[in-house]
């Protein structure tokens, strides 16, 4: 298995990544390329081209053995490296073994009830996650996965991860296949299958949709909630789009109005699903 994973960020205290207080871990690398991504630099992995190194105003980046190495203590978070990256990536990542990551997580005990892995797309590191979650569980903590659901979780190789995780939070970007491809560059087929599969085994913690003006929001909300109607105790987070951190070319996107949102909330509730307005 892969011995390390590339981690973009660890947030020791997160109140917005699942129930209770959690340590949120953001993995680098994603198999989607969503237009409204809030942290697009997490999509591609650094190819160590070194362009950023000379631009760093405080000398926090160095090329060592052909790799762009980031010194977190020197860094002033000006994000110049991200702005100049010709590849749309970031050098501000660290390679972690499971044990190194466990050490970071243990520092946050007794304040957290668990961890949430996010991204990027964390399930690309499924073997790493399985081992991590097993160790996390032995400390009495829970593990949640925040995923785009593109990799089929029904596949036998994902079984270990699904068993080790306490729950999944799944983005339903669009139930309309064409719109989904336009938005993410990929099909929504496995996403929808995963939603139903996870709900059926009681591991779908939450679904969410980012609402954007002009998108087929109603179709998405209506179809997914109808599909998940048989599974009680689900939560649907309806998120108004905010333009923080998105790439310049997508800045013209707008959220839907409150009236439309209220109508969508009613649809969710009518299908027996709990709604959270974000």
């Amino acid at each position: 298995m892969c011995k390390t994973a590339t981690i973009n960020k660890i947030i020791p205290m997160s109140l917005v990544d699942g129930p209770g207080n959690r340590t949120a871990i953001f993995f680098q690398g994603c198999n989607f390329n969503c237009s409204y991504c809030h942290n697009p630099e997490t999509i591609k992995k650094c190819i160590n081209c070194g362009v950023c190194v000379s631009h760093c105003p405080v000398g926090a980046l160095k090329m060592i053995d052909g790799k762009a190495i980031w010194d977190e203590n020197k860094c002033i978070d000006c994000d110049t490296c991200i702005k100049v990256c010709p590849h749309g990536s970031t050098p501000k990542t660290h390679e972690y073994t499971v044990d190194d990551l466990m050490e970071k997580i243990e520092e946050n005990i007794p304040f957290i009830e668990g961890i949430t892995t996010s991204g990027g797309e964390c399930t690309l590191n499924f073997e790493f996650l399985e081992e991590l979650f097993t160790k996390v569980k032995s400390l009495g903590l829970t593990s949640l996965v925040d995923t785009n659901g593109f990799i089929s979780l029904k596949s036998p190789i994902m079984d270990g991860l699904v068993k080790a995780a306490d729950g999944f939070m799944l983005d339903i970007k669009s139930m309309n296949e064409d719109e989904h491809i336009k938005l993410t560059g990929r099909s929504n087929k496995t996403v929808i299958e995963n939603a139903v599969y996870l709900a059926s085994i009681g591991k779908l913690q939450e679904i969410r949709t980012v609402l954007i003006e002009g998108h087929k929001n109603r179709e998405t909300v209506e179809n997914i909630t109808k599909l998940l109607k048989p599974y009680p105790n689900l939560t649907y987070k309806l998120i108004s789009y905010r333009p923080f951190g998105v790439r310049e070319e997508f800045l013209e996107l707008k959220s839907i109005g409150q009236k439309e949102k209220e109508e969508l909330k009613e649809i969710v509730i009518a299908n027996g699903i709990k709604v959270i307005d974000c």
Partner: protein
Amino acid sequence: MEIFDKVEDIKKEVMNTIENQSLTYEQQTYRLSKIAENVMDYPILKNDLFYEMYNKGKICDLDEGHAPYAPRYILPDYEKLLREGSEFLRLTPAKNLRQAINSLLIFYHHVPSITRFPVYIGSLDTLLEPFVDEVNDDVIEEIKLFLIQLDRTINDSFCHANIGPYETKVGNIILDIIGELQNVTPNMTLLYDSEITPDNFAEKAIKASLDSANPAFANLSYYKKDFNGIPFGIASCYNALPTTGGAFTLSRIRLNKIADDSKDIDDFINRELPKVVDTLLHFMESKIDFLVNKTSFFESNFLVREGFVKLENFVGLFGVVGLHECIETLSAKEGKTLVLGTDKEAKELGVKIMDQVEELVNNFTSKYSPVWNNKFMLHAQVGAANDKGTTAGTRIQIGKEPDIYQHIRTAARLQQYFPSGTGDHFPFESTAEKNPKAILDIFRGAFKLNMRYISCYKEDGDLIRVTGYLVKKSDLEKFNRGEQVSYDTVQYAQDPLNEYGILERKVQNV
């Protein structure tokens, strides 16, 4: 220290008070009585070392007044009142909710304290629960009016109510309505025990505190160990004190000012600190002597005569402030820059200092306080006028706060020295309202580390916890403009908010 040398000086101060347009009539009356009290001599000799240390800022008596004629904090036995009534107040045992509330409100009016208002009004849920069979609109209205009456007549947010640890109907009603009421009084504490207090009730309390800065959380099982069967309550800012008793007096040392006058750590620990602590202990003992033996309170007050309080249940509070700056000063004298909350060595020095304070205070035997083995209780005092540059108790200085986990780890270690009260307060981004369980997780973690007392409030709310008490930012703005505000505490909040940076506390991003 207010010393009047001439009758003319007294007249001038009386006139200043009468002319002052920003004081209410009640506030003027209180000030006039304080001037009369301060015409008296201190209950110590004129050549006592106290005066020199006072002038250097090493010792502070919190301007309690020169001739104390009632204990500083009084925690009456309110259960007895509802069970038996009071002969002096011509109150009979309460038979229903209206009678209970009526008796309490009448009784509160007659409980003195340093602020002239009761600093402890009891465990409201435990007191009222026996009178509530079912929750209906009438009951909710009664309790709401009770809370409004408290806020509008007890004009001081040092007044403290307790709730918990059990979930009760009354506790639920209170937590449900305090967000809407937005009252500064009473200050409230949830006596929290994760084994007893249900999660949903505790989460409701967190939600209420984000909204209204009330209630704070006290680590009940930890306090129970200290008090070892002695009934206690949380009064004033966050002071844990024996009920049917209270505290005679509270004076304090400013560790940072003592450090200023020390050559190095050794000189501080072994020479300067012992001198100051000894001086303050004897000052306090003299003050208590005066209160117990020369004044009428313990002879004739109905609270004593009818057994609502007992002399043996009163303690002396030995306060401490300025540990943060003390560590900075002492480490600078050794050529280091140690910051409490950031440097491990700073915390170790803090522990060394507090070990010594604890030992010195516990080595003194008072003639009073059998309830506390004739010792004074250590108290993390939270600040007063002239405290610019002196951080409250053993807190980390505002502006130097590390991340919340490290903050709590440091605070929890240092809070352990203070059985009679200490606390830390954390403002959160308002998004935290969507996930109160997360803050409960953090509080529970803190209590596992033996933190005693912790609270939260919403960054952009009107109500905030200043040092221990509550104030509305909007009221302070009024007071800054010279307008009257009905409660006294806004005066005390003026310096902390305008000058000591309380509004600059690190906000916890979620």
